[in-house]
């Protein structure tokens, strides 16, 4: 009897609010909030600041819910990878069922609030985003195909579309272009990471491209997607919802991206340090941030009545 009690006392929760915040993947969430903000500001018509804030909050919490549900489902492989061993579930601070309940609650609340407070189209798109990330990506593609992140990247590309729909109540070409930029950016970004973290993924048995198809094939695919990404980054200027200045800067950034991808492509198999891959990974974050930051600043300047 007393043994059982001691067990129960030992397993009583030591989780603090910080552990639940970690379940929301705050770093991913910050990128989601940023791209969603750009989508919202770019959308025609404008939105009341309070409603806009509510929409961003719902999108952020929806992204957090996806993160928590992902950590619930992936707890077994997170235990095996050095990169993820310190997450709340593998570290033993939060149980799997607590993470599941937390994620489902936040998912329901974020979709419900976005539907009621903003509009049903945005709410529906957010629900689809969470479904796509948790069910299509985490449960199905991630452990099944080396193209996992290509299709899974769609989940990360949805936030600006959801935010755009929060303003207009619809999906349009411009928001699809924002979607495409993130969608095409995801494979070179994650494969650059997977190149120098492939041991981690191998240990967890995740079929990442470098593990399944080899380093050479991964480098080739990074180059292919970089070739596709560079012109898509310029599309907002070509389609006329960003300025020529944006177009030139995006083209220059795309050229640098492509140059770094070529250097990764030429990297030798024996290269253990993989500096070009690490550089491309770091630059890819800067590239995406810059494209969206330029769109944001340009639109805000236009709304403020300035012109270049």
């Amino acid at each position, binding site marked *: 009897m007393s043994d059982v009690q001691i067990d*129960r006392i030992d397993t009583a*929760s030591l989780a603090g*609010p910080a552990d639940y915040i970690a379940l929301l993947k705050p770093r991913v969430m910050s990128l989601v909030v940023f791209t969603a903000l750009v989508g919202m500001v770019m959308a025609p018509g404008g939105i009341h600041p*309070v*409603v806009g804030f509510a929409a961003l909050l719902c999108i952020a919490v929806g992204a957090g819910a996806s993160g928590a549900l992902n950590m619930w489902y992936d707890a077994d492989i997170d235990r095996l990878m050095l990169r993820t061993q310190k997450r709340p579930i593998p570290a033993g601070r939060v149980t799997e069922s607590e993470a599941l309940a937390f994620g489902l609650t936040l998912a329901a*609340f974020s979709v419900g609030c976005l539907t009621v407070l903003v509009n049903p189209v945005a709410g529906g798109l957010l629900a689809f985003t969470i479904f796509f990330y948790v069910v299509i990506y985490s449960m199905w593609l991630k452990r099944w195909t080396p193209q996992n992140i290509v299709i899974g990247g769609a989940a990360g590309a949805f936030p600006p579309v959801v935010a755009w729909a929060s303003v207009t109540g619809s999906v349009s070409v411009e928001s699809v272009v924002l979607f495409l930029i993130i969608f095409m950016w995801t494979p070179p970004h994650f494969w650059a990471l997977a190149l120098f973290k492939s041991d981690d993924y191998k240990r967890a048995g995740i079929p990442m491209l470098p593990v399944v198809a080899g380093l050479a094939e991964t480098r080739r695919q990074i180059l292919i997607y970089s070739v596709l990404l560079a012109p898509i980054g310029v599309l907002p200027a070509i389609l006329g919802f960003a300025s020529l200045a944006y177009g030139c800067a995006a083209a220059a950034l795309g050229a640098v991206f492509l140059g770094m991808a070529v250097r990764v492509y030429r990297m030798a198999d024996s290269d253990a340090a993989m500096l070009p891959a690490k550089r491309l990974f770091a630059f890819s974050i800067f590239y995406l941030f810059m494209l969206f930051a330029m769109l944001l600043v340009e639109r805000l300047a236009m709304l403020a009545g300035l012109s270049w």
Partner: protein
Amino acid sequence: MVADLERNRGSEAMPSVDDGIRLTPEQLRRRRARSIAIGLALGALVILFWAVTIVKLGGNVANRSL
């Protein structure tokens, strides 16, 4: 109340106060922190719904027929 507890201490069928889960001070502190966080989140939700309601009503409150 105290008398009830005293009476239960001797019997096998009824659990006494000593048999329950006793949380360590650290666990109590974390539970309190979680409770406060939930409270703040619910408070923020109330404020959010209130603010959006006011915004959506806008000037229409004054326009209703009396």
